[in-house]
């Protein structure tokens, strides 16, 4: 009998892993999202080598007429600092803190969800109950209570994000794992004496990847909003670090005379959040089974 599969399967790309990512390029939504996100990422990465003005140095001369000009493309803020530079340097902070927070939260959440979903029973009950309690807390309250009490800093924002989001991520992971652990390949792994940790990390985790990446994108977007809100509440990163939420707060006072000062950082936040949201949406669409 001839061996099966000698004829190449024509319709399937050679490298499915890459094909999965390539599918993003077919989704317009994902592309727009990717563009917005990479726009900011590129600017943030290149910030030190871009011919930007100092994001913290006031330009007293420009304050007489802070509106966008040839010298300051997006104008200067109420302290005479170049808004463009502040936005771009602010992107560095946001693009560091938000993904970092989400990454930590994901690590904790995924671990919780994996353990709860895989072991089930009492372990699941304890973890789920704990998650329920955290989730019953309104998220923003959680942030405010935490940050107001432990003070604003990158670490603390990471901690707060982790506490606030890990249960949600855990719940998603748990749901995925509950389904996946019934899969026969998991049984097969058990039958070849694989350790539980191995099963979780090698057999289960990669198959949660898609959903978790999508969820992660949404969460990064949401965390950016939260960081903005914290900045707006005066609980954001300490100045003079350009903090987008803080920039809006600083300039709401001059909204009616210099609206661009608050509108520009608002647009920056909206565009970046929108980027992540679109990316998540596009990925979900592209990876839909």
């Amino acid at each position, binding site marked *: 009998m001839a061996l099966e599969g000698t004829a190449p399967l024509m319709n399937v790309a050679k490298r499915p892993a890459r094909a999965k990512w390539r599918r993003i390029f077919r989704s317009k939504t994902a592309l727009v999202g990717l563009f917005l996100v990479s726009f900011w990422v590129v600017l943030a990465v290149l910030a030190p080598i871009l011919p930007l003005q100092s994001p913290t140095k006031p330009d007293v001369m420009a304050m007489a007429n802070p509106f966008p000009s040839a010298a300051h493309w997006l104008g200067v803020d109420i302290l005479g600092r170049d808004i463009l530079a502040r936005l771009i340097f602010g992107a560095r902070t946001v693009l560091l803190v938000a993904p970092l927070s989400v990454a930590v939260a994901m690590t904790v959440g995924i671990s919780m969800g994996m353990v709860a979903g895989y072991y089930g029973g009492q372990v699941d009950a304890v973890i789920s109950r704990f998650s329920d309690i955290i989730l019953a807390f309104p998220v923003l309250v959680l942030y405010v*209570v935490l940050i107001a009490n432990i003070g604003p800093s990158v670490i603390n924002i990471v901690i707060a994000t982790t506490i606030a989001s890990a249960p949600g991520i855990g719940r998603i992971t748990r749901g995925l794992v509950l389904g996946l652990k019934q899969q026969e390949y998991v049984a097969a792994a058990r039958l070849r004496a694989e350790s539980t940790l191995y099963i979780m990390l090698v057999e289960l985790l990669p198959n949660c990847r898609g959903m978790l990446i999508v969820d992660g994108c949404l969460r990064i977007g949401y965390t950016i909003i939260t960081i903005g809100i914290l900045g707006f509440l005066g609980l954001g990163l300490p100045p003079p670090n350009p903090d987008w939420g803080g920039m809006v*707060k600083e300039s709401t006072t001059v909204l009616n005379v210099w609206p661009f000062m608050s509108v520009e950082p608002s647009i920056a936040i*909206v565009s970046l959040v*929108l980027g992540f949201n679109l990316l998540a949406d596009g990925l979900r669409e592209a990876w839909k089974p």
Partner: protein
Amino acid sequence: MTRFLCKRLIMMMVTMLCASFLVFAVCEFSPGSVARKSLGPFATQQQVDLLSKKLRATDPLPVRYSRWLGVLLGLIPDPLQAPDSGLNFNDPRGAQYFGNFGYSTLNKLPVNDVIWNRLKNTAVLAGLAFALIVPLSIIFGILSGLKEGGALDRFLSVICITFTSIPEFASGVFLVTLFVILWPLLPGTSQLDPGSGWSIPSQLVLPVAVLVIYDFGYVARMIRVSMIGVMERPFIRTAVLKGMNTRQVIFGHALRNAMIAPFTVLLLQINFLVSGVVVTELVFAYPGFGRLLLDASLFGDIATLEAATLVTVAIAVTTQLVGDLGYMLLDPRIRVK
């Protein structure tokens, strides 16, 4: 059913207990004593120590927590309200009654005098927003979920996803610029004060709008996803192949199924609206619950913070319960037999 409800009620109590303890625990991390905060910057350490002692803030955490719990349940009188404490705390309701949330160190009033009025204000705001979010998101979600990828879907999805990406402070900024400053149609703040020359309804327009803008897109997207899922389900095919027209299919078969999953999401918005309104309340100087919560947590007013947290958690667990009950109503498959 009774069993189920009892079980749920017990779980609710446990959740609230844990949550309240958590607040106490988190406040432990707070640098600075409540006494310092309530005496202000210029008080001497001596005064601070004295007040700390009076407030019994130096007791260990479990002691304070159980005392708080005892006071709340009306088991013991509030020691802070005793006349000899020298704190001048007087609750007209008495020092010992069920539901005694204690005395707010921030407002120098019984928490019960502060919190309910604020909650009422926020309930008005949240209720109006919710009343708009529900129909708007359903209409948007259903219309765009009807034909995934169609022109209408793309258009509505772009609106929804963009709106959800606008933080409240940003939309507050945009709206105030437009409708207060450039085109002064509406008042810039909403203190719910009829004496300000603006009617209460006109004061509510902008805060409600900010909340709706931020929130409805998210819910609409949930409903959209659910609707798309439902439209792909075989029973929709059954309905179409029965000879039903689109309207009959949607209202007869799709709608109720499409609402099952987003129902909980919709209810979750109540939680969000009750406490997530902080930013909106701040932007519009609205005398609401969110700001109270913010002020209390910034100040370290643990009595108010506890009460506010308990209320929000109670709302959260109640909506969860309502969600589950509504779920049963919507989906006969999970009704308790």
